[in-house]
């Protein structure tokens, strides 16, 4: 069943194959922008938006390159398309939809070099997904990114103001907190196979 396949891709991308907590894609924003829940939501919304756009834009190009037997150019084409797209979206939003630009635009430049976006495009190629499977994978990856960001921003708000040994302050204790958050996602292991059969 095609639809069931799509749902299982979506669920897997959010939970068992969570981009941040099990694939380690997009760690920089995860550690950098997760201090406040608002910024975490804004950043993840921008990531979802760019992931979907990038997938839609690179999918036909990948097919074209494969047809022309130039698949080795994929990485260059993908990163160029993503970089160009992000710039373009930023300009368009700034000019025509200032409200949305205020909410998402500020995060856009950071996303060009975000491994999560190039990662989702590469994963789609590697897994041989068709167009809708790719889009659903991008959506799931983005939503999973959002879930992890929001969860972790909650954890970090609790971390603030506590006392640690001096050399654990800042990044080290944040990473340990991330480890515990990632542990909670281990609980999803087998979930998708359990629901949809292996």
């Amino acid at each position, binding site marked *: 069943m095609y639809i069931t396949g799509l749902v299982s891709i979506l669920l897997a991308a959010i939970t068992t194959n969570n981009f941040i*907590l*099990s*694939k*380690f*894609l*997009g*760690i*920089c*924003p995860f*550690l*950098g*922008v997760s*201090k406040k829940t608002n*910024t975490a939501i804004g950043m993840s919304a921008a990531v979802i938006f760019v992931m979907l756009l990038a997938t839609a834009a690179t999918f036909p190009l990948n097919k074209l390159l494969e047809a022309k037997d130039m698949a*080795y*150019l*994929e*990485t*260059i084409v993908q*990163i*160029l398309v993503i*970089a*160009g797209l992000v710039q373009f979206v*930023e300009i368009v939003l700034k000019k025509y939809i200032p409200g949305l630009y205020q909410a998402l*635009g*500020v*995060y*856009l*430049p*950071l996303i*060009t*070099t*975000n*491994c999560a976006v*190039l*990662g989702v495009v*590469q*994963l789609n190629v*590697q897994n041989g997904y068709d167009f809708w499977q790719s889009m659903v994978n991008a959506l799931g990856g983005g939503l999973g990114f959002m879930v992890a960001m929001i969860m972790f921003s909650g954890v970090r708000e609790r971390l603030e103001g506590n006392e640690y040994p*001096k*050399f*654990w*302050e*800042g*990044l*080290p*204790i*944040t*990473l*340990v907190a*991330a*480890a*515990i958050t*990632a*542990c909670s*996602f*281990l609980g999803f292991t087998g979930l998708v196979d359990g629901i949809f059969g292996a």
Partner: protein
Amino acid sequence: MAEKKTLGQEFSKGLIKENPVLRLVLGTCPTLAVSTSIENAIGMGVAATIVLICSNIVISALRKVIPNKVRIPCYIVVIAAFVTIVQLFVKAFAPSLDASLGIYLPLIVVNCIILGRAEGFANKNGVLASAIDGVGMGVGFTIALTLMAAIREFFGSGNLTLKVLGYGTTLTDIFHLGETDVLTAIGLEPILIFILAPGGFFTFGLLMACANKVAESKGKPKAELKGCEACPMAATCAMKADGKECAE
């Protein structure tokens, strides 16, 4: 003589003082993702080092030609080209490494170390200095990656694969343990979670804390996720213009 000394410093600063992973906090994604075995870590480190050296050389040679406004896309194209070359080489000569690194090999394109060095060093310095900087930073990255992989692999599986490109040995072979691992042999159990994702975060935090401790004893500031000054996108970033910082 004076210049030679500075080149030596360009090299050595990347190893410890400005270690890209543990001091500058760059390239965290590949560090966490491929540090499950020493073999992967060394493969990743060497691949990234080659890309870093080549892109540093080309970008620094072109630094007066590339228009300032479009420099980031230019850098990305140069980096992506070298990544593709390295990827093809790895696919041809080390297919098993290609399989175990998976998407993280093409993702070297967005490794912040490489873009960060292009923006932070190669576009201000000469070709030779940039090349040396690339070697130093690359070796520093490889060392940090290997150290992390050693900890994770040893505690997670009780074994160490002391291999490069499939040649070499493993810790269990050295002690002739056959199917059992070193930890089981001394009456302990491997901690599986070290190989899994949470172990990556934990080990990284642990190493970072150790690095901070050492830095503190030398009177240096502790490592932070840098704000805007270290970010390669700083020049075009709207958050900075709004007076906000991404790592606020």
